[in-house]
């Protein structure tokens, strides 16, 4: 591992899907780190490759997937070189996943207590009684009321929110190092969503797991993530801390995403939208894949792919606009407002740090 703090390092990952029409280049050179204990959000449209990335980590890709290059380092071992059998023991034990739809990710014919206990029996060889006892504890932990009486119920006897709690209980029963949450609240109502997100934060503190959170809801990202990676057309186009991405975004695609979501304050006739549709990854365009939909596209965008430019130690964006010779552009109004807020926050931070000095002096005196 390059860095002590990392639990997972993905490097130069490329995944193609073989179809009758040709190779769909779903992941085109993706690299990122997951730090211990953090929540990394991956955002992007459908087809941008967020789910393929995590499925590749889990070794759950469809049979026509072809991993052409890259490595996924977990505890100094490359997951891509593991046998199916090894991956099976890693899944559910070291790395677990919560899926989007709690209606389809549970076995309708199995009692939920057994479903929650199953990972313990399979991975740890635990006896059934002991495993069920732990399952009961887990049910209480994820907030299933009246757990003792419900342990022998079937999934259809629970509401959507409760089912998602069961799915979370199954994923966390072995205290995994990494939890992948693929749109875990998209199928739920806002009030239930709030409960589930709070539960995930609470449990993350309790069992100190690292989370990869996939979603297209930027509101959820703002509340959950420590760091954010924005994906477009099979690539990460920008990544940084949650504040950097929301208040000081640099990539025009991130601008578009942030502006096209109405906030509760926005009004006016026209909602800024990103024109057009994502490119066909059977034949990805030359240069920057976003160029065709990008009002800020430069001539170089259609010819050469932009490399990552460094904005800060934690913030990188792949857009030619950050090149020293690029023309200065004004981002959309909403983004300018966000940047202004960011500047003020930075000022506040500096101001907050100043009164810290006398406190230290006091301590010295004591």
């Amino acid at each position: 591992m390059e860095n002590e703090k990392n639990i997972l390092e993905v490097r130069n990952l490329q995944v193609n899907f073989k179809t009758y029409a040709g190779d769909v280049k779903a992941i085109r050179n993706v690299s990122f780190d997951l730090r211990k204990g953090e929540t990394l959000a991956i955002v992007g449209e459908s087809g941008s490759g967020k789910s393929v990335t995590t499925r590749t980590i889990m070794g759950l890709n469809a049979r026509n997937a072809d991993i052409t290059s890259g490595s996924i380092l977990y505890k100094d071992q490359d997951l891509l070189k593991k046998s199916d059998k090894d991956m099976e023991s890693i899944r559910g034990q070291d790395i677990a996943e919560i899926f989007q739809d709690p209606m389809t990710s549970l076995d309708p014919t199995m009692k939920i207590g057994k479903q929650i206990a199953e990972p313990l029996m399979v991975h740890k060889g635990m006896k059934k009684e002991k495993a069920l006892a732990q399952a009961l504890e887990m049910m209480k932990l994820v907030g299933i009321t009246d757990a003792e009486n419900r342990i022998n119920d079937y999934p259809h006897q629970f509401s959507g929110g409760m089912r998602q709690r069961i799915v979370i209980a199954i994923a966390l029963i072995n205290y995994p190092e990494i939890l992948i949450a693929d749109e875990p609240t998209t199928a739920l109502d806002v009030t239930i969503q709030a409960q589930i997100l709070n539960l995930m934060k609470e449990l993350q503190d309790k069992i100190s797991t690292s989370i990869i959170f996939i979603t297209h809801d930027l509101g959820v990202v703002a509340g959950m993530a420590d760091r954010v990676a924005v994906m477009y057309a099979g690539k990460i186009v920008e990544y940084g801390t949650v504040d950097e991405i929301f208040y000081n975004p640099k990539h025009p695609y991130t601008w578009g995403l942030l502006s096209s979501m109405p906030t509760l304050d926005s009004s006016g006739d026209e909602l800024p939208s990103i024109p057009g549709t994502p490119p066909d990854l059977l034949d990805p365009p030359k240069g920057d894949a976003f160029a065709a939909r990008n009002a800020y596209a430069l001539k170089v965008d259609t010819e050469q792919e932009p490399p990552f430019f460094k904005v800060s130690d934690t913030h990188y964006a792949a857009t030619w606009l950050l090149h020293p010779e690029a023309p200065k552009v004004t981002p959309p109004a909403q983004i300018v407002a966000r940047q202004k807020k960011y500047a003020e926050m930075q000022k506040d931070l500096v101001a907050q740090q100043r009164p810290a000095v006398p406190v230290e002096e006091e301590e010295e005196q004591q």
Partner: protein
Amino acid sequence: MDYENADKILEVKHLKQYFNVGKADEVRAVDDISFDIYRGETFGLVGESGSGKTTTGRAIIHLYEPTSGEILFNGKNVDNFKSKADQREFRQDMQMIFQDPYASLNPRMKVKDIVAEGIDINHLAKDDADRTKRVEDLLETVGLNKDHSSRYPHEFSGGQRQRIGIARALAVDPKFVIADEPISALDVSIQAQVVNLMKKLQREQGLTYLFIAHDLSMVKYISDRIGVMHYGRMLEIADSDEIYAHPLHDYTKSLLSAVPVPDPEFERTREEIHYDGSGENDGKERHLVEIAPRHWVRADDDEIDMYTQRAHEASLIRK
């Protein structure tokens, strides 16, 4: 929107829609709701799943026989349309846009036939050339290309399919369109496109929308007025800006407090307000009361003072 001179295009009066009536599993999906929709406005209907918002929409377009209550469209009771002509006119004037752009288009029909189905049924086209022209115009209106007309639905993306669904609804020149979660199956960047299209069509053709959704920020953006439903009942109706800035009912407050906002600073301090719905079922007689001008809240006689007090504190009532 000028409500002083606005006339009502739709009046829903004490609508009840029960399923499995008289059986052990009777469901009161919609339980005595009343509201009006004015010509040219967008009325947003929000609520959680199971709150009855979709059932309300379906009852209005008469996909169900209401258990009781009346629905007046242009002043005429929808239930009393006995003659074929009346029914046909009603079906032309009121159209629907569906949630799932994949399930709502027949995969074995070409786009032109999907869009023209309403034109054919209502004999709106003089001849084949007129039909083709109408279809091409409609496709253009919704931002598609006329070359698209001989393709099949699977050749389109979700956003484009939703545009086809909108073109189909517009084909019969409707006055009132029910959009049931029209954007929730679409990507964020495409949602904005479809919402902008719906707003543009409203301006150009004077359409009235009933916009049903659970995405509260998008509902606020598109709606003039909003109704909040819970357990089959309408709890609060007000102008969209007002209901978001000054919700009076506890449930509305709770619902709004749960909306995640794309602003990390805000999210760090956001407190969710928990709502205990048990008070709603204490058997007291409740109905919508106009607490502040054009701001209705479901209350019993004792609660009116409390809500009036809240409205005073929010300066919704001047005195």
